[in-house]
């Protein structure tokens, strides 16, 4: 499932709801790997009061679906979920939720991270931060691997 959300959401509640809606996972998916990205109230030493998340209607949904499909082909997943916020976001709000369910942990871990890295580097979203001193576009995402 791929979804863009204009309202605040609780990632853990979404995961419960998704598993409840997919009873076929019960007793089959031995492993689920999850990533939740949250808006911090600081970035590059400045206090960030709020943020606007712009996207490209049509392309963003299409790209997220393509990432998910690609992960489903590459690993033996039983399900994969991507929810991403759009519009006005406040500190502490969840921005992105990615989850992958599989029979074994290697596939779940690898697929979850693959989806996140592709999303961070290619999915059409742009953050504009609102600081006390004014607004600014975020330049670029930091790399997702330590070395």
């Amino acid at each position: 499932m791929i979804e863009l959300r204009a309202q605040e959401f609780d990632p853990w509640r979404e995961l419960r709801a998704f598993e409840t809606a997919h009873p076929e996972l019960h007793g089959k998916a031995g492993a689920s790997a999850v990533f939740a990205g949250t808006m911090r109230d600081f970035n590059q030493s400045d206090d960030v009061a709020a943020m606007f998340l712009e996207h490209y209607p049509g392309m963003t949904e299409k790209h997220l679906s393509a990432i998910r499909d690609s992960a489903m082909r590459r690993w033996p997943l039983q399900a994969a979920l991507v929810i991403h916020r759009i519009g006005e976001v406040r500190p502490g709000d969840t921005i992105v939720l990615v989850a992958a369910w599989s029979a074994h942990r290697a596939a779940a871990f690898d697929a979850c991270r693959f989806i996140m890295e592709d999303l961070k580097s290619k999915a059409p979203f742009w953050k504009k931060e609102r600081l006390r001193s004014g607004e600014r576009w975020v330049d670029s995402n930091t790399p997702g691997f330590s070395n």
Partner: protein
Amino acid sequence: MIRVKFFASLREQFGAAELDLPTRPGMSVAEVWNAAAGQPLPDYVLMARNLEYVQSDSVVEDGDEIAFFPPVTGG
């Protein structure tokens, strides 16, 4: 005609989210940028044709939607 879209800082820079342009046979995405922006295409700009990433030498067709945007910062 093609529909040209700008997003994020590029949209603000050009003061417009979208505009329509006449096409010429064999016109590339870089040439669409030149026609729309009146300046050479900067290296950092990303391009999409009909909702999929393309390179600047990709050729456009009548009816296409061509988008230009800065590096993405989602997630």
